[in-house]
């Protein structure tokens, strides 16, 4: 165990844990747009910057990304000092120029008092902050269907050759983790479209509700050894089926006992 001070309070943490996971456990709200527990920390958005110092640092301070900084014994952390807030305002100011139409960014910026960017707004902004969550999550799932394309000024997230991505299974994970909701998809009847690729949605055998795409089901059953017919029922009907089974076991064992 490691003991550190956050905003004047002494807290315990596990060795090797990142600062951000400790502050979250302590209920401290630090913006962290490029972070998701499902993937390794990446340090792309720089919004989670905090101020750190130690007793022996003689009053010197440093600014680090909380998502990437492992806890240390005796660390003294300020998560919302005026300097930290100023750093975040600068980042938000830049993000606001990049994503002038993103409600998520506008709101976060406003919380830090930035309502108008000091920089020039990007024309035809696509609201992507290049946090890399979508590509990392897709990679983590093993599909690796999308990636960043180009670099610097022209960098975007896109499928290979900017065509419908051959490795995409339509799981929607990328769209769901995107902090600015950039990735569009459409579910219509038994058809799902994402990244310009169309998928067939499986309808639950019992209730008819759409579950996941056929491609995702096939990938899951081969990757994780799940029987393919598992995906023919939706979660709800699975639960119902299970409870009926459980019920019959209970009544069977009661009968056996009596």
């Amino acid at each position, binding site marked *: 165990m490691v003991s550190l001070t956050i905003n004047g309070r002494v807290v315990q943490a596990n060795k090797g844990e990142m600062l951000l996971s400790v502050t979250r456990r302590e209920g401290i709200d630090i913006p962290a747009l490029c972070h998701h527990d499902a993937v390794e920390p990446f340090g792309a958005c720089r919004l989670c910057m905090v101020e750190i110092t130690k007793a022996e640092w003689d009053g010197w301070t440093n600014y680090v990304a909380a998502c990437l900084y492992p806890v240390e014994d005796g660390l003294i952390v300020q998560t919302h000092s005026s300097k930290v807030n100023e750093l975040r305002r600068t980042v938000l100011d830049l993000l606001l120029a990049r994503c002038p139409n993103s409600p998520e960014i506008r709101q976060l910026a406003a919380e830090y008092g930035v309502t108008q960017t000091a920089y020039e707004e990007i024309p035809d902004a696509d609201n992507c902050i290049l946090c890399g969550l979508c590509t990392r999550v897709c990679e983590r799932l093993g599909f690796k269907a999308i*990636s960043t394309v180009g670099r610097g000024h022209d960098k975007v997230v896109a*499928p290979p050759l900017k065509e419908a991505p051959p*490795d995409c299974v339509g799981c929607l994970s990328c769209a769901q983790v995107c902090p600015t909701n950039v990735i569009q998809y459409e579910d219509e009847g038994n058809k799902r479209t994402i990244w310009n690729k169309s998928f067939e949605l499986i309808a639950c055998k019992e209730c008819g509700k759409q579950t996941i795409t056929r491609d995702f089901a096939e990938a899951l059953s081969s990757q994780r050894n799940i029987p393919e017919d598992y995906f023919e029922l939706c979660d709800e009907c699975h639960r119902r089926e299970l409870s009926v089974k459980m019920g019959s076991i209970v009544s069977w064992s009661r009968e056996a006992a009596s």
Partner: protein
Amino acid sequence: MNHDLDKLPEIYERYPRTPQSLIAVLQDIQKEFHFLPTEALKRTAEELNVPLSKVFSVSTFYNAFSLHPRGEKIIRVCVGTTCHIRGAKQIQEQLENHLKIKAGETTEDKKFTLEVVACVGACAMAPVVAVDETYHGGVTVASCRKLVKKSKKGKKS
């Protein structure tokens, strides 16, 4: 377009079939075809066992790679600070007029691609024009046309 993809297997033979060989393989493909044909990207992904998305990401990251056909010779005009002061702009315009293309484009006969670069690290020779790997210093508006002519001949012999 006619690019001879039969040459690909030979390129793959040169390196271990691992993801680590990706850049080396792409460099050789670029050299062979003067760009990276779509089909070659797909084949490379399969041969080296790299996701196609990664192949695309790498091929769009480095300036040395191009997804569109480039000329047999790449003429790069340095427009870094020193060359700029010594007249790079005029040289660029001269070459654009002479080749009838803009910077970043390729001549119709696919002989030349004209590019501007921000410093080739040879400021002492400014203004600099590089034709492929050969660096020419002290280039003038008059001499840059000759450069084009010379490299055309060089190709033939």
